[in-house]
């Protein structure tokens, strides 16, 4: 058969396409359970890290035991029929505010104490940054934060993940509301902390990443304020 004839060329291309598509589809379907499990586990570990649980041997079962979740809409109403796992924060970020859905995770410790864990998502210097912040039952004091990024500079912006003792732990114990009851959140600041309850040290040399963190923390918690208010009126009316 003439190797360069049209018929041969087209048949060859067709067979190659089919073979390649079949092989890739096969590999994809046999590996996709593992791929999804990995992604799920990574998210669970991030959530647990925000309440201070790290280096767990079986993060999945700790998660099963201690974390429950709900989804709220932009007005603070709880939505039924949708689980937190189905909400992709990255996609919600792109939607207009009124259409966004927000997952909320609730951690119940062995002593019965609760923490509310809020997902964070925003823009770093090079690419997206995200994380989880856990809040005490008083809905004011921060219990922990974990952060991650895709392309921040190692040694600078990447420190939000690489140096948790330096840039995550300082958030613990800070307060979201000031003495007048206004929501001010907690910000990274340069040049020294002036308001100990609401400020932590920024990463030197990583101004834009630090600004990104501040923005994502403020907006990330802000989404849940209406829901938190309704929780507080519920508990105070008991």
């Amino acid at each position, binding site marked *: 058969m003439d190797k360069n004839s049209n018929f041969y060329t087209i048949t060859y291309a067709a067979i190659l396409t089919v073979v*390649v598509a079949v092989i890739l589809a096969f590999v994809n379907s046999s590996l996709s359970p593992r791929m999804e499990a990995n992604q799920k586990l990574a998210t669970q570990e991030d959530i647990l890290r925000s309440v201070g649980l790290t280096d767990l041997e079986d993060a999945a079962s700790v998660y099963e035991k201690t974390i429950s979740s709900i989804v709220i809409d932009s007005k603070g109403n709880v939505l039924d029929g949708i689980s937190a796992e189905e909400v992709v924060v990255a996609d919600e970020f792109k939607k207009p505010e009124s259409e966004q859905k927000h997952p909320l995770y609730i951690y119940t410790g062995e002593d019965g104490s609760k923490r509310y864990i809020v997902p964070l998502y925003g823009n770093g*210097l090079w*690419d997206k940054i995200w994380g989880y912040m856990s809040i005490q039952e008083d809905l004011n004091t921060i219990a922990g934060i974990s952060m991650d990024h895709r392309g921040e500079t190692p040694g600078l912006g990447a420190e939000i993940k690489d140096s948790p003792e330096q840039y995550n732990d300082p958030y613990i114990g800070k307060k979201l509301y000031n003495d007048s009851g206004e929501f001010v959140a907690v910000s990274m600041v340069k040049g020294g902390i002036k308001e100990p309850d609401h400020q932590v040290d920024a990463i030197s040399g990583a101004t834009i990443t630090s600004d990104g963190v501040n923005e994502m923390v403020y907006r990330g918690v802000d989404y849940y304020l209406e829901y938190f208010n309704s929780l507080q009126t519920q508990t105070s009316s008991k």
Partner: protein
Amino acid sequence: MEYVNIFIKASFVENMVLSFFLGMCSYLAISKKVKTAVGLGAAVVFVLGITVPINWLISNKLLSADGLLGTDLTFLRLIIYISVIAAMVQLVEMVVEKFSPSLYSALGIFLPLITVNCAILGGSLFMDSRGYRLGEASVFGLGSGFGFFLAIVAIAAIREKLRYADIPAPLRGLGIAFIITGLMGLAFMSFIGIKL
């Protein structure tokens, strides 16, 4: 305004060549003369400006789980992207051959090699991982191409001048080109954080 920001970011702050060091192969091989560098740069602007939006459409409207085909075919992403790029480069090749035969022979093998230029595929992959909308993706494609154009013309000009410099033998040619590229990369870092 957001579009202008993306364009500026893609051409300066996140220059494909000088910030991510993608597209180095053809960049180093072609940059000996400014004229050919301009030709290659223009071809890259065109290819990036067209392939990024097309690949966006394919990735979001065809391969995604809620696209036209209904199932999640994202594992075919890489193959389809590179095929689109190959087709586009073939088109550019034909156009250049017809309208500027001298440029065509000057570029030689490097015109079809644009297909495997990391910067081109990189443009589509970055567009993917950043989740741009269509308009943003198009501007990003054009901006990246423009950034590549700037970088390659700049280093071609520098290397033309370098021919008269007294460089130690082991460093001549490739070695000094790398060092200079590194210095340019450092210089481009000064653009970080520019926002209009």
